[in-house]
């Protein structure tokens, strides 16, 4: 039964028309990266990459970017979260999909089973209610995410501070998209030729800050939405630019955002957070790629409050998530994918969250499809032809 304003963007005839248009303008293979975990999820859920592969004479490869905030949260931060969550005075609050992310010693689910008070919240502001309800407890929120979640996380800190709720603190691990795009484009192994920009991030930030990146690296960036038609139209707009030798920032998601984004939300974010260098799981340190709390709000900084020491961490040496996050490889190129590494026993960043590329491939059965044996690299390479969907 249709949902207004949503199902229109899943229309099969319109999707086929967009694919036909891409087919018409494309004269050679291209490699695009979608920046957002939500876009990756949508591509795999709706089978868009397979649709393009079946319909286009030239490859239009969609590689999956580091846009899942859960995946790129560093192991150190996760271990710190676990150390804080284990304290008896703490009610540890988190977005749901963070619970499953493995640290060096298990995940938050395991701590919950051992008696830690861990709660899934749907908005950071739920922590204010908990703080009033349990004044003798320490309410700690795991403030992760890209620019999208920053305003709500900032609002929690702002209101806790204004309402003098001293028992609220946040463990901040915010990451920013533009430095990640620049990092990918600077890598010598980079294959990405055009980007589907992050729609929800730009709804907050606008897309002015992407313009210098597009011109410096001569790469088209089309800020796109998350529904199948958004992604196909974003891909069409990117291919048009590539074929014409253009490299500008365009806005496919105009029904949601404009060049300026949401100034009020941004002002709140800047009043609470300032940029800092940040370590990304699977990628490494990227300068000026994260947020930390401003000095005025230091009393709400959970790292300060609980004095969690730097912890030595160890990643699996089988995991290739760093290369996946940079678009160099795809999940099924990893020998551990679906065997040693599954959502139940994730070895690395990209298998842990529903939005991670490996988890999305796994959830939608790509490890089961006999055809997913293709090697990486531009062009089709030794890719086994994809059998079409079973005919009705």
């Amino acid at each position, binding site marked *: 039964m249709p949902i207004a304003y949503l199902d229109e963007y899943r229309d099969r005839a319109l999707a086929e028309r967009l694919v036909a248009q891409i087919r018409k303008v494309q004269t050679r293979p291209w490699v695009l990266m979608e920046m957002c975990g939500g876009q990756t999820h949508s591509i795999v859920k709706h089978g868009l990459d397979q649709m393009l592969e079946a319909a286009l004479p030239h490859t239009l490869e969609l590689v999956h970017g580091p846009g899942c905030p859960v995946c790129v949260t560093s192991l150190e931060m996760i271990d710190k979260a676990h150390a804080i969550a284990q304290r008896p005075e703490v009610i540890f609050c988190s977005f749901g999909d963070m619970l499953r992310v493995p640290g060096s010693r298990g995940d938050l689910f395991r701590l919950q089973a051992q008696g830690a008070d861990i709660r899934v919240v*749907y908005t950071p502001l739920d922590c204010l209610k908990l703080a009033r309800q349990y004044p003798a407890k320490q309410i700690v929120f795991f403030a992760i995410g890209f620019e999208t979640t920053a305003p709500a996380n900032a609002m929690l800190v702002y209101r806790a501070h204004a309402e003098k709720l001293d028992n609220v603190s946040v463990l901040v691990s915010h990451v920013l998209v533009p430095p990640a795009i620049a990092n990918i484009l600077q890598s010598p192994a980079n294959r990405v030729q055009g980007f589907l920009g992050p729609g929800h991030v730009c709804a907050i930030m606008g897309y002015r800050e992407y313009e210098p990146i597009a011109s410096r690296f001569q790469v088209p960036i089309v800020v796109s939405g998350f529904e199948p038609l958004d992604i196909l139209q974003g891909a069409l707009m990117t291919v048009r630019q590539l074929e014409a030798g253009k490299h500008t920032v365009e806005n496919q998601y105009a029904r949601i955002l404009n060049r300026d984004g949401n100034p009020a939300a941004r002002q709140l974010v800047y009043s609470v957070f300032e940029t800092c260098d940040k370590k990304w799981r699977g990628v490494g340190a990227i300068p000026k790629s994260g947020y930390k709390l401003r000095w005025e709000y230091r009393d709400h900084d959970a790292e300060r409050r609980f004095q969690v020491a730097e912890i030595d961490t160890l990643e699996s040496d089988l995991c290739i998530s760093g290369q996946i996050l940079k678009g160099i490889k795809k999940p099924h190129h990893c020998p551990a994918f679906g065997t040693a590494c599954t959502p139940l026993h994730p070895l690395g960043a990209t298998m842990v969250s529903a939005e991670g590329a490996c988890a999305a491939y796994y959830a939608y059965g790509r490890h*089961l499809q006999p055809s997913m044996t293709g090697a990486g690299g531009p062009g089709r390479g030794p890719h086994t032809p994809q059998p079409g969907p079973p005919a009705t």
Partner: protein
Amino acid sequence: MNTASSPTPSLVNLTCPLPLTEKERIVLGHGAGGKLTAALIAELFQPAFHNPTLDRLDDQAVLALPAVSAGGRLALTTDSFVVTPIFFPGGDIGSLAVHGTVNDLAMGGARPLWLAAAFILEEGLAQADLRRIVASMAAAARAAGVEIVTGDTKVVNHGKGDQIFITTTGVGWVPEGVHLSSNQARPGDRILVSGTIGDHGMAILSQREGLAFEEPILSDSAALHTLAAAVIDAAGGHLRCLRDPTRGGLATALHEIAERSGVGMLLEEKHIPVRELVHSACELLGIDPLFVANEGKLVAIVAPEAAAAALAALRAHPLGENACLVGEVRSEHPGMLMLRTEVGGTRVLDTLFHEQLPRIC
């Protein structure tokens, strides 16, 4: 979210607490086998459930088999219910405990006859809540034509349970000639669903997490034995298998059939009925309705020649008016479930490792 607070029975107006027979809350004595237990049975359970077998109050129900033709068989099933919250839009743990077990019998083609019910009560449970749950069970059993003929009650310390757990065991009668099993699906068979999917799971989730939508999402909890009987009558020997897609939802139920029958399946996403409100809630939370629990829906695998008759029979029943043909059994990819997406792509539906969690963004 569990916000259980310690029970505080009002003792303000009592001069001497000694003669108190606890009427407000469940206490450990209600499970001790003495006077309180007897009182709970006599005043709460027996009046609600009463029938000649139960009223004998023996340790076992002694039952006469129904007078039916030779060749019929007994069906036996058991299920435990631990749902939180215990009252939810569209039902409660009591009616659910009856429907769940009745449906497990019905999916085997059985006519449900009798239920046994075991209660694990947490000290401090309000007797008013227990009374309401028991009344709801009794009403559900009456409506389904089954008798609750024996039972048991235990009480655990406060904090050692979650208000109330109910286990129901059901006995039913499978008439001669009815042989339904999850290993019977064959290539070419059609896959029917009796109505919208995901209603129960999203009703529970939205209630549990305090998510307010414009109107409440109602659980679909219902007894399906008459609906099952209708489709059995309509399709006869062409009906291969019935399943109620409870935990794990439609995708998990079909996956089990595909595995046990050694066949593949292809579903058409656009034909799978999902209520608009449920669909919206799922989109909002990043949850896939194909994996969300149902408590009042069935899946029927039917040979192609009887598919139209089976669909018509489902649609003619009040519990099946939104029934749809959603896919087909295939010989390719045995053990696998493929979905043709709304937009025209395909993907594999695998079973889930975990409970679905709301996504961050």
